[in-house]
């Protein structure tokens, strides 16, 4: 449905250029709920705006439904108005001088996708019904709550085109509880209508919960694209692992194909690597399991001293020290303690291994960082 090739975008600012997008490739298939996540300033909004035609790319090609809408060779430009998509903005952009009804109806009456006069009413009612706003149709847009404005924006987008929807952090202005409720509804609605959705957020939980596919961006580049499970369990680099949840990082060296020497002792890993290679190891807090019966397990057992712990209701977050290294664990119960000593284990399948020469990968291992991890849990 959307195909982005080699897309780049530079902004001219006083004192030079900012490369917001660097040679990006994205493929979104029909009917897919595609989420772009990334830290602030990573270029998510810029990518979405390029697809929407609100920003002119510096290079590369964008196709929507197999039609080139923007390209540098041959130079092609289809303005926003003719690209046929619905869009929900971060600020909702509900026109304050119009009623709810007119907000949805204006594009149908006067836009490039206008419909015959006698069908406008039905289309508007239908869209408002889908977001349960039909009762407030005559209300002025200034008198709506944040959640209601969000729904009007969604209705307007659906009414214009339910085939392709672009959304830029549509939930970031809602409070936490409402956000959780609405994100389920949006996904349900998109699936009900069979829409292709390109959705931007900076919240990894939102991304996980809504998407069929996630693309993680950093500094204008895509780090990894894949299903949520894939990104969580098989990140292709340290930053990806780090983005989707906290990780206990360790520096190490391979001594056998599947055995690594680390500051907390030897650890078996599943992914083979060349012996002698410097590596970066990581495992998530919830992957640390408590060993009840020490005799039953031999590999990857950690003798640790229990530090602080926090009760979060559904689980405990605790810190342990293994040979001067602080690790963070998560569990439903606290490990049983014998004079402060506990026995833990990490499954070899849960240990993520990345090459240590990856320069950016090393950034996650800065001392402050591992300390911060300990408190963040």
């Amino acid at each position, binding site marked *: 449905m959307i195909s982005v090739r080699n897309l780049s975008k530079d902004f001219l600012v006083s004192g030079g250029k900012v490369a917001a997008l660097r040679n990006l490739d994205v493929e979104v298939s029909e009917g897919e709920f595609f989420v772009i996540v990334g830290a602030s300033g990573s270029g998510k909004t810029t990518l979405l705006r390029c697809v929407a035609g609100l920003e002119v790319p510096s290079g590369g090609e964008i196709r929507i439904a197999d039609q080139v809408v923007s390209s540098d060779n041959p*130079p092609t430009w289809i303005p926003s*108005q003719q690209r046929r998509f619905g*869009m929900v903005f971060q600020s909702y952009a509900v026109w304050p001088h119009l009623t709810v009804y007119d907000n949805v109806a*204006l594009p149908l009456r006067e836009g*490039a996708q206008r419909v015959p006069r006698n069908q406008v009413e039905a289309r508007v009612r239908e869209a408002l019904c889908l977001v349960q706003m039909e009762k407030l149709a005559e209300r002025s847009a200034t008198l709506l709550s944040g959640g209601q404005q969000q729904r009007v924006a969604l209705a307007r987008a659906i009414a*214009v085109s339910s085939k392709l929807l672009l959304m830029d952090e549509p939930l970031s202005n809602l409070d936490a509880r409402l956000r959780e409720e609405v994100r389920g509804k949006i996904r349900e609605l998109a699936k009900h209508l069979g829409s292709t959705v390109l959705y931007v957020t900076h919240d990894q939980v939102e991304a996980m919960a809504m998407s069929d596919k996630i693309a993680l961006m950093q500094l204008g580049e895509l780090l990894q694209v894949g299903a949520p499970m894939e990104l969580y369990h098989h990140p292709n680099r340290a930053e990806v692992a780090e983005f989707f949840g906290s990780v206990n990082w360790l520096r190490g060296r391979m001594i056998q194909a599947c055995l690594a020497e680390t500051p907390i002792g030897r650890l078996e890993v599943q992914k083979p690597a060349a012996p002698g290679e410097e590596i970066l190891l990581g495992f998530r807090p919830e992957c640390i399991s408590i060993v009840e019966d020490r005799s039953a397990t031999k590999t990857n057992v950690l003798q640790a001293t229990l530090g602080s712990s926090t009760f979060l209701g559904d689980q405990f977050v605790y810190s342990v020290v293994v040979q001067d290294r602080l690790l963070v664990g998560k569990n439903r119960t606290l490990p049983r303690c014998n004079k402060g000593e506990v026995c833990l284990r990490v499954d070899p399948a849960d240990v993520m291994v990345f090459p240590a020469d990856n320069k950016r990968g090393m950034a996650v291992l800065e001392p402050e960082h591992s300390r911060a991890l300990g408190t963040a849990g």
Partner: protein
Amino acid sequence: MQEVLRLPRALSTRVKMPSPFLLVALLPMGLILILVAVLFWVSLQRGVIGTAAVTYTWENYAVIFGDPFVYRVSVNTAIFALSTVFFALLIGLPIAWMTERTTIPGKVAIYSIMTLGLLIPGIYTAMGWTFIAHPRIGFLNQWLVDLFGLESAPINIATPVGMGFVQGLSLSALAFILTAQVFRAMNPSLEEAATVHGMGFLGTLWRITLPLALPGILAAIIYMVTIGIATFDIPAIIGLGNRIYMLSTFVYLKAHPPDSGLPEYGITASMGTFMISVAVLLTCWYGRVLRQGHRFEVVTGKGYRPTLIELGGWGIVGWGFILFYALISKVLPLLLLAYAAFTPYLAPPSWKMMGQLSLVNYYNIDWELIMRGLKNTVLLVVVVPVVVMVFSFCISWVVVRSRSQWRYILDFGAFLPHALPEVIMAVGALLLGLFVVGNFLPLYGSVWLIAMVYVIARLAFATRAINSSLLQIHRELEEAAYAAGLSTVRTSWRILFPLLRPTLLSVWIWTTLLVYRELTVAVFLASHQSITLPAIIWSYWFGGGRNEAAAVTLLMTVAVTPLILVFWWFGRRSVLPSQ
């Protein structure tokens, strides 16, 4: 998705078509450049301008800089400009301080009075004060002479300082508006800190308040000096008849010599170029001082509520001051104008004169001329504001919204008329009409030439006002419309115009009023056919028909009163967009 089409090859060499707004916005910029260029071009010529019998030299500049008369005129102008600022601040500053920093009652009323002050043209004040304090015909002088048996008139407003006083009366409303902004933006906790640490009221005022306000006040001073240097109307009304010349009236004299002298356009143009340089320098300085002033503006949060100084009984004194100002700057001049409009000749008001009141002036004035002036004025008042709004909306949109490289140029270009005195634009347009397009376009002497200059002159203000409103409209409101398929023009019509309506309305009324009363450009450019009402007043006045001039002025004032009331009513609710 058949609607998504590849553009035909012929069109696709350009990746993105320039927005229609950019094309419209460039038009007035081109005009401004042409005016300045023409002025400079003519300033280099001696001989029969625009023909083969011309030599290109710097001689015009040598002539004006070597002329002792020009030197005297420059000194006059400097004295005039400085005394203008002095009197304007003497009145405007205390009123601004009282309104923004003390508990004086009736602040809305003060704002209304001062805003009305902005609307009453300087020429009315000038004519009124001529009736009051002119050495020969001023009533006050005659009374004082009679009362004390003096030899000669004790008060003379036909001097640079006297004219500066009248101009200061008329600019004090502006001084008020400018300095009130300064006081409002100032962080009150700085003053409070001084009071808490034991400084008295006057000490705080002198040591803290004024120094903090100083950059803002300095900026206001430079701004008013720029206006003062180029003002034409008051020096023309009071000074021309008494042979006291300023730079602006000097330029007028060279372009429209009395009797049957030949116009010296080369001299006019070189003087114009010189004045542009001075004005541009002053304006750049103004911009710098203004930016420095912003350094002191500590950002205040939402709960910002300045503690006001308790005036108590002094409030009465404050109001006395304001009312006295209103009396001498507005009420008295207008009353005397009304009186002069109904008397057959000029004489101090007395019981005997009351018996002589009649409509005689209205029988004497040339109604055919008035109707022609009315027609032209109405035409200008209807057309110019609309064109100004279209241009300035397009400029603002490009400057605020687009990423076009042109936006910096447009931003500066729209500011330029603000630095170019109206006199100079009028001269530029005069020369353009005479020597450049004269052969193929009968622009000279037509009302459209006047309209053109009016449009350019009003752009700076309108663009600033729309810029700041447009900045407050979230970009996404507009982009949502594009994404939903509305074209650029339709988006403006359906989304931006409704949201900008309060600003557009106040810009429109304000422009209308200024165009209605505009004198300078009209005097330079009006011909027998294209004369406007203010120009008619001027020609009566200059020709000695002071009572007739007063009669026409009264008519004009009465006719515009409804509009002023609308403006006032409207201005109460939305604050006048500041320059």
